[in-house]
């Protein structure tokens, strides 16, 4: 039992800067557990985003690179083409992936780059103060949608994972969440599957993880989890979106 609660080897013994109840710490740990399970810590190169997870390289104990905001999949493409036998994954938030980096994610998927994308969707820009994200759901108030997100003014939430499904180069897409132990285990399974597909040379895959942001949702951590289960998944249903394996 004591084995199970140890810090993963792939995780540094560091205090994170994340707010109480934030999902990033959980996702970081899930990734580290999968890397440990697959015994690939010494053959992994991760690309961190710009956004709340910009300091991921302070928490992960494997090789990590920075990328300019949204260019994360382009940087991963460069790394993977030179080092095809390493595990290369990006870790991106919704602003990084679905706003400024829309072009890079779609074209990396369309080229069928053999990389993994961990997409953490919390529906706001956390790092800059809770502004509206492309994935902010209708009716949600943010720093830059004070009258809530309205389809006629701010547009609809962008379902980028569903958009990616039409691309033949994209082999596996799944949306998961972190709201209870079962969902956490499910997320871990999805991340593991994405990494395994890459190691087998199967091509591009992405796991979208619905994650809480208590600070900018104005809710406590428990209520944030409840909001995902009761509201967010109505816009972003959980499950496998594409699996061609």
């Amino acid at each position, binding site marked *: 039992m004591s084995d199970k609660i140890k810090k993963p080897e792939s995780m540094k013994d560091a205090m994170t800067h994340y707010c109480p109840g934030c999902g990033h710490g959980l996702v970081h740990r899930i990734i580290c557990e999968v890397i440990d399970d697959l015994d690939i810590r010494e053959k992994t190169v991760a690309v961190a985003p710009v956004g709340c997870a910009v300091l991921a390289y302070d928490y992960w104990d494997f090789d990590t*690179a920075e990328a300019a905001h949204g260019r994360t999949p382009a940087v991963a493409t460069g790394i993977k083409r030179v080092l095809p036998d390493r595990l290369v994954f990006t870790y991106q938030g919704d602003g990084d992936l679905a706003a400024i980096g829309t072009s890079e994610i779609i074209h990396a998927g369309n080229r069928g780059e053999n990389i993994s994308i961990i997409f953490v969707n919390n529906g706001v820009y956390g790092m800059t103060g809770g502004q509206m994200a492309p994935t902010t759901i209708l009716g949600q108030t943010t720093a830059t949608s004070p009258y809530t997100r309205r389809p006629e003014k701010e547009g609809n939430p962008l379902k980028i994972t569903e958009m990616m499904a039409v691309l033949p180069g994209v082999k596996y897409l799944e949306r998961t969440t972190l709201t209870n132990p079962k969902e956490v285990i499910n997320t871990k399974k999805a991340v593991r599957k994405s990494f395994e597909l890459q190691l087998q040379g199967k091509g591009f895959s992405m796991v979208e993880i619905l994650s809480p942001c208590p600070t900018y949702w104005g809710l406590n951590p428990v209520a944030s989890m409840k909001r995902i289960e009761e509201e967010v998944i109505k816009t972003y249903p959980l499950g496998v979106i594409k699996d061609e394996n």
Partner: protein
Amino acid sequence: MKIKYLSTGNEACGEGAIRAGCRFYAGYPITPQNELTAYMSRRMEEEKGTFIQAESELAAINMVFGASLTGARAMTSSSSPGISLKQEGISYLAGAELPSVIVNVMRGGPGLGNIAASQSDYFQSTKGGGHGDYHIIVLAPSSVQEMFDLTYDAFALADKYRIPVMILADGMLGQMMEPLEFDDNIQPRGIVPKEWALTGAEGREPQSIKSLLLGPGVLERHNEKLQRIYREISENDTVWKEHYTDDAEKIIVAYGSVSRIALSCVSAMRQEGCKIGLFDPKTLWPFPYKRIRDLAGGGAKFLVTEMSSGQMLEDVRLAVQDDARISFYGRMAGGIPEEKVIIERLKAM
């Protein structure tokens, strides 16, 4: 064995990169550098390297960022409007100290401008371009041969100092054909160990490549280190060519295609007995301030001619420190300085 053939400047640049060991190229179509992208699409496959036609210039420069951080020699190319898009990536490359080569085959601007040869990106290339306190090395070829030679050299310089290097050419140099000659057995030079590269942390501590330095004073110390490197480059790797400057009373300062026109003027006027010389900077950053200052100390006058409103002119003014001895003749947006006008200006000085 020497091989010799007719090549465009764009293709000579591509071959120079391949001979320097570049095996990663990402680019996006834009005139007047398209021959280079097309050349790399063919040659990279032959050399078992990587060619990617990226979705944008932003993606291309960031693919180079990714390839470079693994230790590979990597290059991208574009022309003026596309180079503007790459500035974000160039700033990150400079901040993260990633060696890389960027080719700018300049065209007319601002905006979409036109597709004629121009030298109006001098400020952008030599004074920053992207955000932050940084420099990149800027090399200025004047012939198809130098498109090959300087691109070949660029990779060794980039690795030596962990810095992006730009080949600043223009549409005329990119498109024109001239004889190109090199040793078929030429090998990559200046290969250095890259213990900083990310390859997976096998048998070593994990490491990061980043430009984000948040701690108190950390970024300032990093920037001070960059400035020390820039001073070292200025001291050791400032390069220029001189023609007939020994006894010259008047010296033309010109780079790239324009230096070729200027050299014709020097030859013509020397035949008339006029003591004219040519100063052709090969590094625009670092700029050869000291050598020009020395030439000015000998009492020479200077005519700066370039395909811009007077961008390199500002560096010559900084070097000479005496505007009364400097004349300027510039053409913009596809205009090419004419021999006849250069000679008139020299005679009027």
